[in-house]
């Protein structure tokens, strides 16, 4: 299974990109639209010409055509062959590469079982739902024992629920196949669920390549910090395990209660849009609710960023302009803040 190495690659928006994807690694390319993410995939696949060098396991691939690179590619639009049944779509690569009927049947059966699409074998792509099409396309891309899999926004066209399930299945499948995978996503949360490492790409440059945890807790550049939503990073001093599966952490004088997942917590990242602020005391339990003092108000085009001093920590909160206008917030004034629990990230030890 190969290690992919891109040396000094330039094409369209991309300028002088260097990137290494280790053997069997799952790397996510994340960045805004037009950053050049899909171009990186097309270069690895050899579908476009480029300046620079591409190596698989140290072997130069620049003159190797796409059909000899041993790559599976899941395109964003899936492009299932409309004139072939599900089984024939999956078998296509195997047939083209000259595998025998026994191998083909065995492999197709294996993949339709792994992706739960056995019942769809004889259907045509026109009669499949979005999620089913996605599964068939994944099976087709990996079927001919490809060593590398490229995935362009593999779950972007699906509803949130289907997308979540598929990400989990994809993650299991990729690890089971022991394949080197590079995928493009614009959603950082989704990427985090599958990838070993994330490369943040912006305007044709790679800003940072690191594990999801490092991206959140040690963003290297202002662009990465902005892209990950400029989270508030809080250092946790004391951890106390509570009954009922919860853990209490103290960040300065701020007490945060989180679900206990078997480890103590060293740092917490809270995205600004996950801090709700209000000029009136909100009803409900006191858990993860605080009072603070506004230290700065930064109005932007459609949002307003508000810095609030809570228990010795200055937190950045973000709220829509309309909400801000409806409330009576001013610098030095007291404000109520609620930290939304489900989107918190922890740096565990």
């Amino acid at each position, binding site marked *: 299974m190969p290690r992919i190495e891109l040396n000094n690659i330039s094409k369209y928006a991309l300028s002088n990109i260097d990137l290494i994807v280790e053997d069997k690694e799952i790397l996510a390319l994340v960045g805004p639209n037009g950053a050049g993410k899909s171009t990186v995939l097309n270069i690895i696949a050899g579908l476009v010409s480029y300046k620079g060098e591409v190596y698989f396991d140290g072997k130069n691939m620049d003159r190797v055509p796409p*059909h*000899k690179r041993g790559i599976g*590619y899941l395109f964003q639009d899936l*492009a299932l062959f409309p004139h072939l049944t599900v089984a024939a779509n999956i078998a296509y690569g195997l047939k083209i590469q000259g595998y025998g009927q026994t191998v083909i049947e065995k492999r197709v059966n294996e993949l339709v079982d792994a992706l739960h699409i056995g019942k769809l074998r004889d259907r045509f792509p026109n009669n499949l739902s979005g999620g089913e099409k996605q599964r068939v396309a994944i099976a087709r891309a990996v079927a001919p024992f490809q060593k590398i899999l490229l995935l362009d926004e593999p779950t972007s066209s699906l509803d949130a629920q289907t997308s979540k399930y598929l990400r989990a299945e994809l993650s299991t499948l990729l690890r089971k196949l022991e394949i080197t995978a590079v995928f493009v996503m614009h959603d950082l949360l989704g990427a985090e669920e599958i990838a070993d490492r994330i490369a943040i790409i912006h305007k044709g440059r790679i800003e940072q390549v690191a594990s999801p945890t490092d991206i959140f807790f040690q963003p290297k550049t202002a662009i990465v910090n902005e892209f990950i939503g400029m989270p508030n990073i809080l250092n946790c001093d004391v951890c106390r395990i509570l009954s009922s599966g919860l853990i209490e952490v103290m960040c300065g004088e701020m007490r945060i209660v989180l679900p206990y997942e078997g480890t103590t917590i060293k740092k917490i990242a809270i995205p600004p849009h996950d801090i709700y602020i209000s000029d009136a005391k909100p009803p409900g339990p006191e858990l993860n609710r605080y009072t603070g003092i506004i230290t700065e108000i930064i109005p932007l085009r459609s949002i307003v960023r508000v810095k609030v001093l809570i228990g010795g920590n200055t937190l950045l909160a973000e709220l829509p302009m309309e909400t801000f206008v409806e409330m009576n917030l001013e610098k030095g004034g007291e404000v109520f803040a609620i930290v939304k629990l489900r989107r918190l990230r922890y740096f565990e030890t």
Partner: protein
Amino acid sequence: MDNKVTFKRLTITFSVFIFFLYVGLIFSLFYFFKGPLFLDTLLSGRTLFSLRLSLFTASITTVISVFFAIPSAYALSRFNFFGRQIIDTVLELPMIVSPVALGAMILIFFNTPAGGFVQDHGVQFVFTVYGILLAQFITTVGIATRLIKAAMDEIPARYEEVARTLGASPLKAFLTITLPLSKKGIIASSILTWAKALGEFGATITIAGSMAMKTETIPIAIFMRLAGADIEGTAVLVLILIGIGLSVLYGVRLLVDRKSYV
């Protein structure tokens, strides 16, 4: 709402007018239609020869035209290369130049040293069945290419990219993906090419002449009968041509209207 209805009626009226224009012309043929004469004319040796010649030449021309049109249509649809726009424009030559002018151009070519060489050392085109084939080929190959290109343009190049990543060479990707997907378009284009070749007159008469029992296709036979003031015979031959043409076009409509994959 009222405006909508009025507009709808107006547009339908125009389409009905065009329909009656053609149907009226077809019905006027029956004014000169006499049952026994129809059979006599249809079964006469000369008509049967013309019919056979027309069907034979149109079929051969279609095979040759489509054989050339498929790869060129693919190139024009998929690749950016120097001169693509020029080739694309020249394909319309048979549509913008009258068939007689096309025939004249071919005839003039055979009067050049290069054309003379072909005639002397290759195939004799002038006043032969090969001339009919050449005239029909020249008038149809551009249109066939254009029609097949339109069918291939409908098929996203992405399918071929997927096939390439799955191990297919460019030729295999073309043969296993693009060709089957454009099959309906190719068949429809072939039938239209065939119908166009069957009705070809101007270029054919210019190159192959109008020799009875030699180069007399159905359209030429119609011209000959009309020139001889044989209105009844002309009406019969026109009806034969219309019968073949309309049934073929109806077949195309059935084929094209069927649900497409893409």
